């Protein structure tokens, strides 16, 4: 395409550009104001989606450390704390000196506990002061006033300690997402739910006699987190994975028929094994790191 250029006259030595700047002066003096925001005395108005300093909701955070693992620049760390209400917890801290303010930690959080506010005035004379621990980031009320962008769905969440394997939920589901799967070695069955097909109709939660299925609000996550694979033959039933799992997905169940007869004739307790409820898993990889017997495989998890 031929461009739309113009040729200029000799008078355009000075008149046209001077006309433009002259009009600018008139505009700025007479009809309008200059385009300056007198900074310390007037502040910028920022949209709520601006990515500034983080806030952390202690109650929503489960301490899964997904944010620490996804940070591109390794700016976050987990700190062990004692809270009067919540007990012994682990919460993340951020080094603002290294932070890119990219927002990936906000996106990957499974419980929408960490947010970024519009506060950007974080300068300090000392690099050590830029390391914000979890207590400095704590704000339990921010999430109430914030309009979440992520979609949430109401999904059934299984509490395996209450489940008896009675198989009342599976025929109730209209979308046929529940299948009863036997647990190897334990002899019971547990329901496995395909969460993509669930329509949130609540029939399975209503029918369950033990109230093991509960409808909870789960936020959509677009990240493909790694899933643990369990190898029964290596499991010794030590329970380390169940203790560290932040999302309560691992239950230790006894395997009947594995009692050994001890030397003095008494029967020992039966061996335990770990049972995974993978619908709740957030992919943090702590079970993988905690198991010392190579019973859990997790391709793609950090060491």
């Amino acid at each position, binding site marked *: 395409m031929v461009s739309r250029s113009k040729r200029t006259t000799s008078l355009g030595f*000075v008149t046209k*550009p*001077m006309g433009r*700047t*002259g009009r*600018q*002066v008139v505009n700025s003096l007479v009809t309008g104001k*200059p385009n300056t925001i*007198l900074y310390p005395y007037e502040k910028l108005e920022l949209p709520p989606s601006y990515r500034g300093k983080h806030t952390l909701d202690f109650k929503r955070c489960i301490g899964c450390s997904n944010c620490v693992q996804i940070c591109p620049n390794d700016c976050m760390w987990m700190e062990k704390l004692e809270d009067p209400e919540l007990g012994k917890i682990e919460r993340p801290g951020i080094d603002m000196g290294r932070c890119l303010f990219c927002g990936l930690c906000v996106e990957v959080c499974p419980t929408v506990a960490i947010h970024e506010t519009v506060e950007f005035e974080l300068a300090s004379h000392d690099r050590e002061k830029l390391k914000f621990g979890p207590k400095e980031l704590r704000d339990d009320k921010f999430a109430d006033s914030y309009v979440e962008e992520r979609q949430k769905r109401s999904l059934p969440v299984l509490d395996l300690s209450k489940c008896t394997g009675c198989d009342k939920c599976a025929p109730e589901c209209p979308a046929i997402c529940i299948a009863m799967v036997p647990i190897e070695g334990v002899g019971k069955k547990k329901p496995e739910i395909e969460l993509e097909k669930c329509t949130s109709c609540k029939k399975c939660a209503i029918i369950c006699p033990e109230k093991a299925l509960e409808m909870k609000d789960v936020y959509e996550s677009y990240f493909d987190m790694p899933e643990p694979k369990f190898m029964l033959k290596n499991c010794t039933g030590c329970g380390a994975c169940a203790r560290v799992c932040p999302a309560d997905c691992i239950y230790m169940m006894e395997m009947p028929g594995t009692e050994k007869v001890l030397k003095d004739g008494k029967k020992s307790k039966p061996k335990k094994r770990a049972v995974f409820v993978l619908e709740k898993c957030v992919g943090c990889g702590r079970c993988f790191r905690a198991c010392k017997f190579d019973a859990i495989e997790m391709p793609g998890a950090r060491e």
Partner: protein
Amino acid sequence: MNLYEFSYGIIHWLVNLVNNLWYWLGDVLPGLLGDFFDAIGRFAASHGHMAVMAMLVESLIVIIVALINVLNFIWIFRKLSGRIFDFYGPYYVGYRIGGWLQNLADGVKLLVKEIIVPMKADKMGYLLAPVIYIGSSILIVGIIPFSENFGISTTREPGQYVPGAALLALAVFAIAPFSILLAGWSSNNKYTLIGGMRSAAQMMSYEIPLLLTAVSVFLLAGSLSFVDIVDAQHDIWFGIPLLIGLVVFMVCLAAEVEIIPFDLPEAEAELVEGWTTEYGGMRFGLFYFTTAIRAYAGGALVTAFFLGGWQGPAIIPDEIWFLIKAYIVYVIFQWMTWSLPRVRVDQMLGVGWKRLLPLAVLNLLIAAAMKTLGWF
């Protein structure tokens, strides 16, 4: 009452005050010492001595008034540039008077900076260049009078001002290129050398149309003194018949004073700071200040030659009229500065020699024609 009489009055009063001391000492001390102090007292009261001191005082007054005006010019420059660029100019320092005190704050800042002399620089030239530059520029502002009664006189008789003042002003204006070349060369830096060379070329090629246009004004006025030139404009300002001359004079002045579009010696984009690169602290401040002084001197010259000097309705005193016109010319200069890009060296030389010189000659012919027709 003109300035000479005013300063003579001040000196007279001062001498009378101090002579009390000398005469008292002459009375008290015996012999030769007493005669000595008596002689000092009589010398101080003599007319020649007081005339010389009066001239010094009036030069001081004129220069101080001019320099305060230059501070005003710098303030207007920054505010106007701010409005052209769509921001406020200086705002906080001197908040209620619109940021006027920013100049003083900048001056103090430049005073406390460290002064570095490059190791391999030619010390004599390096230290001498700013002195020549600012010295000659202050000399110009001293010569241009503000009105008939407010200027520097050369004789004891009031009303007689520097006879060849206009020619002297233009001559002193042209000393500056030498100091720029000296500064550029003695800094031991390839960039400043190029800046200095460019400046020399530019100033030399734009002196000639400038002087030719000034000659046409002298021709019409019939004299070289400012007072006579302004008096000759009582019917009509010279700017109107000599319109070509006015335009040529303003363009040449822009080149002499080194503002964009003729900014090459100091072109930031290519040469960092041009010929002032190696100067720091208050030396740089002096260069900056001198650019403003020369811009003011240029504006004053244009006013005096073409725009009727200090003539105007009598509601406002003459000096204020002169200043108002000089400010208007300065504002037009600044408007031009921020609207136009920079010209290149060979283009600038082309404009100077090929376009402005014939126009200046044409202007001279028009002036000569008007003079012979007896219109002036």
